[in-house]
């Protein structure tokens, strides 16, 4: 009896103090699952991540459109309205996201509703029923959103400079030529369990998690045929009459998703009355060392060499901005920004900078516990082989760091542009 009491006390102490250790398992269909068990509060978080393929990356707007259509489609035998009522009735939050490296759904639910929540996530991921009517509705809504960019010169400049084709705002032509068959093909190519990673965090144990994941995702198969209603037309529909007419369809570009070439024409956004502002955007090189990336994210935003320009990291993009003086032209502002970036690239960082950044990175790891969603993100990165390792961080040299900086700020990789009043 006394031993049992001691065990119970130890269990409670360990439960309160122990670090959350990831536990991994898989399903026969190839789905990889990571569990972060934490019973502090009756909540469960999940993130299902699916990487995009080169074919999707080569088609601007396809992934974004697919995610929109999936979000408005019926799932399994549940109509979209009922699907949303089921989510809302249990207070389940299901949020889609798209980044250059993949699409994902994040889920938050009370632990008492975890069965329902994971079932609905599975329905959305591989039992969505695509139909042409939803495609047309979303096509129009997407175009309206793109048009709304016109109202904000800053947002428009940022969108025009987006280096990753997956995330670029679609042109009218690419939007009107996007066919239902392409959506079905996307569904079959991307939404497959053998490429997916599911991270679970919160108030559920390992056995419970295995049972739940097996029940919800066990029937997901690699060769899943596109889910289309029997009456779905197989030809590409004409653009709806409410969309402006585009030029005849061109085949999708065969370029890779990242086309880091300096634009031949300067990007200029006309903004009468606005002060000049230059922007330069560079997508993270695919082979960039994760540790170097983590340190650059610490070092670049505060570097005084960039003054008065500012730099920040947005997703996979490095974004530098400079607000010019009233009398400066947009072109001069852009030239000054690029000059600052190249000066920084040439200068690089010192051993002392590297040492300080490593210390800051190590200390900052303690902060992850303050953000349950960051813990999920870290576990996901780890499972995808994109996590940062303390051992590799320790081994990173200043040459490695500066090499990464030079690659990221390579002039051929930077896309730059400016907004301001046109000069007569």
């Amino acid at each position, binding site marked *: *009896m006394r031993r049992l009491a001691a065990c*119970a006390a130890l269990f409670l102490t360990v*439960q309160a103090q122990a670090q959350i250790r990831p536990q991994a398992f898989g399903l026969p269909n190839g789905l990889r699952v990571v569990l972060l068990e934490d019973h502090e509060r009756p909540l469960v978080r999940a993130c299902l991540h699916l990487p995009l393929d080169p074919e999707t990356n080569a088609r601007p707007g396809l992934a974004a459109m697919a995610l929109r259509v999936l979000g408005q489609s019926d799932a399994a035998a549940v109509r979209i309205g009922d699907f949303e009522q089921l989510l809302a009735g249990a207070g389940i939050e299901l949020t889609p996201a798209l980044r250059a490296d993949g699409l994902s759904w994040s889920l938050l639910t009370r632990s008492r509703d975890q069965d329902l929540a994971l079932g609905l996530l599975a329905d959305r991921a591989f039992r969505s029923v695509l139909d042409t009517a939803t495609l047309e509705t979303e096509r129009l809504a997407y175009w309206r959103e793109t048009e709304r960019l016109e109202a904000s010169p800053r947002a428009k400049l940022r969108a025009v400079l987006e280096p990753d084709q997956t995330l670029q705002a679609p042109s009218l032509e690419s939007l009107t030529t996007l066919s239902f068959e392409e959506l079905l093909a996307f569904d079959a190519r991307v939404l497959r369990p053998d490429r997916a990673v599911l991270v679970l965090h919160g108030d559920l144990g390992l056995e419970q998690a295995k049972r739940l994941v097996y029940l919800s995702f066990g029937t997901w198969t690699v060769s899943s045929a596109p889910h289309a209603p029997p009456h779905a037309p197989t030809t590409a529909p004409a653009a709806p009459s409410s969309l402006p007419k585009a030029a005849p369809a061109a085949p999708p570009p065969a370029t890779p998703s990242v086309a880091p070439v300096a634009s031949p024409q300067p990007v200029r956004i006309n903004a009468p009355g606005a002060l000049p502002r230059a922007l330069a955007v560079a997508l993270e090189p695919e082979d960039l060392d994760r540790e170097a990336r983590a340190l650059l994210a610490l070092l670049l935003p505060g570097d005084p060499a960039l003054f008065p320009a500012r730099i920040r990291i947005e997703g996979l993009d490095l974004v530098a901005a400079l607000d010019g003086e009233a009398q400066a032209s947009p072109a001069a502002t852009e030239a000054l920004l690029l000059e600052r970036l190249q000066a920084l690239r040439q200068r690089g960082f010192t051993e002392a*900078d590297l040492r300080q950044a490593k210390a800051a990175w190590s200390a*900052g790891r303690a902060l992850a516990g*303050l953000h349950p969603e960051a813990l999920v993100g870290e576990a996901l990165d780890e499972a995808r082989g994109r996590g940062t390792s303390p051992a590799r961080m320790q081994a990173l040299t200043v040459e490695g760091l500066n090499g990464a900086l030079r690659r990221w700020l390579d002039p051929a990789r930077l896309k730059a542009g400016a907004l301001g009043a046109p000069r007569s």
Partner: protein
Amino acid sequence: MRRLVLLLLAALGLNAQTLRLEEVQERRLANGARLLVVERRGLAAFHATLVFRGGRAEESPAMAGATDLLARTLYGSTWPEDLDTAKGNGSLDALLKEEEGLLESLRLERLRQRKDPEAVSQLPALGANLWTLHEAVRARFSASPLADVYTARGGRQAATPGADALVVEAELPATDFEFWCRTEVQRLATLQLSRFSEARAALVAELRARGPQSLGLLQGAALPGHPYGRDLADHLPALEAMRRSDLQAWARTTCRPDRLTLVVVGGLGMDAVLPAVQRHFGALPSPPAAAAAEDPLLPEIPADLGDRRIQAAQGGAPRLLVGWRIPPRSHRDHLALRLAARLLGGPSGRLVQRLVRQKLLAQSAEVLMDVPGGRLPGLLVVDLVPAEGHSLAEVEGALHTEILRLQQESIPADEWQRALTQIDVEMLRTEDEPAALARGLGMAWVEAGDWRQAEQEAQRLRNTGPEAVQAAARIWLGPSHRTTLWLQAGSEESQDPLEAETARVLKALAASRIQDLAQREHLVAEGLRQLRMLSVEERRRTLKLLEAQLAPEKR
């Protein structure tokens, strides 16, 4: 044995319950500052939120933008040079005072040049002096990329200006708690504001680039003459004339300890937190008794404003925004209105389900509460984008039908339960995330006068019935509290150029004389209507006369 198992299960169950008052520990320092601590064992870091009550609502017209500037200059970064004035050669403060004088001379010289363009300009000389001075100031700062003392320790900090408060959030490893206390107090004691001129220029540029905001237009019309209805873009001259010393003086009254609540959530208990907080924050000087007692005088929002309407043009899709003036968070009807907003808004709410999905009248529907704040009477806003082929009038009619239904028809049990569940999940989430919990406690103190309000609202929710929501909707969501904004799709560029220019000049003239946006809109519309009756030549002459009344920089 069975009892032990039950005990064990009960202990595990307790862990899974929602926030309890006893989890929050409170202390009051002698100088008036409040401290709230929520310990999360097992965390090796802490989240700290400083909430300074005040915010944009307490800015006088001459200090419009002060909260935003303070967030950028005082809390934009944490550099050692800003914390210790004795560091380096000479005084940084003296250089910054010199900069203030030069900036003011430049501003006055620009005004003089506009009035008398023929006069010999001092601008180049003043500009050169300022450049040299800026170089001297910059030379005093560290050239290290990790000069920010929090970033160098793996931490981060952000400040958010709001209508009711300035909220500063920091996160650091638990071992740095004492360091954080010392740094924050040094910051408040020094009030260096070394990046004042850059921050002000950036804020002015942002406001100019932003153009009119739809929500800002609605606030201006619904809350005329009140700081909640103010659009900063209308106060650019005041912002440009603000000096560093003005902001320092304002910060001394706003960032007083009696207006501060400090919330710490993380791996530190009260035993670890209180001594360091007392040592550092406790050393901040107490405000004079008279200053601590006085409440800022804020203008009342007239209750008899009636049903107001305005129209404006902007790029993109047309939009309908309807705002109802609602009571502050401390009012007994506020919680019922929060539930009403929950029933109407969100993907499962009535507006999306009926107007977007069933009737296909709208593309999107969104409901916002407490715009721009909850300490004083604010707005409940519905934002609707009509679907293709449907007019703003149709959508507005459908919205009013839904409001009437909410007021008159009984609320189905499943819909009611759904709204309660969503709020329950929202509260659980807030409790789970240290940043959200700290902010929630701090804002409850600001908006309702007591941090316990966050917990008490959860209790009251369980005792609120659908009838209370309907009663509150009948009182507050009626035409007498309503303001409607129609945002037309056409831009002003599509107008006749002469009319567009006349409209611009009339708006600028009206902006300098009339604060009430609805009255201003009415005056401009009436003026344009009358001018259309004149010949083109007469209209041109009238335009010239009107332009002559404008300040030179606005012509």
